[in-house]
């Protein structure tokens, strides 16, 4: 009974983390771009004259999206038109469940795990649901009865499949070093120190894999510079026939996907919830774990957001070339080198 309640609490935290951060990211996206481009950014939404540097804009956006007309074009396949955004959002919300927001803490004489879904194959689970998310994109493009949507869906399929393959190949090397597919154990495996001061984080053990992961992760979550399925300047993309909250769900699932990718990156490369030289125990340790994980995820999100406002969009062929001809071979080479290196070292 207690276990069930605790699981519900953890799931609630994961959902709040994902959706809350997603809403916040909408604000970050506007303000960060504005500050980097010498502008002020959205600052008009106000409640009783309070503007709070535009923090009310996500709320205004939400109200707008919910109250907007939900238009379904005559040529769309109705049930699937409604299913696609749900599939998109559902898949990436499920990914959140396996992220280790914290380790295990002992409070009230019990051991509590802070990971909502403890699985021995957590990484495979996350990658699988990230990959399933592509169905929402393809379905949306296919059933909305619009050629632009279809183009977007096709691009999405080509791109996301390519980069899911890359993701798996890239993550093979660090997971080989950690010797597990369990995300919790992967965090524990990064708890050591080299020379007594440098934490054995994945980013120091596998720098190439980290860079490749950022590239593939951006592409798999279809963020700029790899936002070809959307490409609002040319085809508007797979959600061109969506309006109101259905469109909003696609937006949110984009952000949540981004959060999942960054959370996974923080877990596998930045030491997860661990804080170097701080031993975490008890209730305060648990809170520190949650905070540390959130800070690391946000740092990666900040970096990717800045990349988004720095680079122009790739062309389709360039994108696929980069994936199949550069990232994938490099990832496989990195894996081979890691395995041989580990064998020679032994």
């Amino acid at each position, binding site marked *: 009974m207690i276990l069930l309640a605790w699981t519900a609490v953890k799931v609630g935290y994961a959902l709040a983390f994902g959706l809350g951060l997603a809403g916040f990211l909408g604000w970050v996206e506007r303000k*960060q771009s*504005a*500050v*980097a*481009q*010498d*502008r*002020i950014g959205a600052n008009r939404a106000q409640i009783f004259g309070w503007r709070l540097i535009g923090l009310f804009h996500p709320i205004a956006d939400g109200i707008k999206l919910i109250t907007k007309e939900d238009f379904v074009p005559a040529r769309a396949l109705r049930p699937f038109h409604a299913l696609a955004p749900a599939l998109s959002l559902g898949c990436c919300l499920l990914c959140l469940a396996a992220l280790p927001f914290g380790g295990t803490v002992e409070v009230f004489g019990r051991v509590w795990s802070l990971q909502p879904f403890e699985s021995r194959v957590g990484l495979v689970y996350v990658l699988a649901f990230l990959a399933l998310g592509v169905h929402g994109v393809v379905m949306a493009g296919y059933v909305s009865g619009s050629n632009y949507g279809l183009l977007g869906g096709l691009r999405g399929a080509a791109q996301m499949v390519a980069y899911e393959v890359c993701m798996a190949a890239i993550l093979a090397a660090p997971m080989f070093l950690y010797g597990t597919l369990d995300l919790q154990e992967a965090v524990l495996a990064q708890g050591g120190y080299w020379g007594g001061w440098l934490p054995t984080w994945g980013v120091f053990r596998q720098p190439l894999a980290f*860079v490749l992961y950022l590239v593939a992760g951006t592409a798999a979550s279809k963020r700029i510079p790899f936002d070809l399925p959307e490409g609002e300047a040319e085809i508007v993309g797979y959600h061109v026939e969506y309006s109101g909250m259905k469109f909003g769900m696609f937006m949110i699932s984009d952000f949540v996907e981004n959060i999942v990718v960054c959370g996974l990156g923080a877990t596998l490369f930045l030491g997860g919830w661990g804080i170097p030289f701080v031993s975490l125990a008890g209730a305060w340790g648990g809170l520190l774990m949650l905070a540390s994980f959130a800070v690391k995820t946000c740092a990666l999100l900040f970096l990717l957001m*800045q*990349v988004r*406002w*720095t*680079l122009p969009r790739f062309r389709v062929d360039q994108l696929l070339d980069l994936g199949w001809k550069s990232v994938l071979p490099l990832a496989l080479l990195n894996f081979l080198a890691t395995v041989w290196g580990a064998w020679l070292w032994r």
Partner: protein
Amino acid sequence: MAMTVRPVSRPRRGLLEQSYLWEVARGLGVTFRHFFINLARHCLRLAGLRAEPGAVTIQYPDEPAVLGRRARTRHRLLRRPDGSPRCTACLLCETICPARCIRITAEESPDPAVEKRAKTFDIDLGMCVFCGHCVEACPVDAIHMDADQVELAAYSRGDMIWDMPALMRDTK
């Protein structure tokens, strides 16, 4: 005239540029620099300290728009020294207007020195593309686009049509 040829060499891309990562890092350097400098300026100003503004934004509806000296704005019909309109209803502006948004009807002028004058002179600002051709075409310099008014929105298409008294309202 002899043609001159200036060879433009394509920038050579070495391994560093081709690998893309270095260039991405440089781009990030630029945007990060702007981000942090602007952020610091915003914070300093919020704290009430003297600092350069972190943004160049003009808060337009709250602050007036800044128009260039040569900005083409709403049309204005000019007057003669005696106060009558300068326009001789020659229809050159109506003819040249690419948007066909000027409508003039002419009438006999009481002044024997002037052949005719405009009875009505309507400009449909909803169709005008603000090209300025009408100003260029006018032989007697009767029409200018310097009323410095850019807020011309109206609630109906009919209200976008400005007639002669309106166009002459702010000319002495």
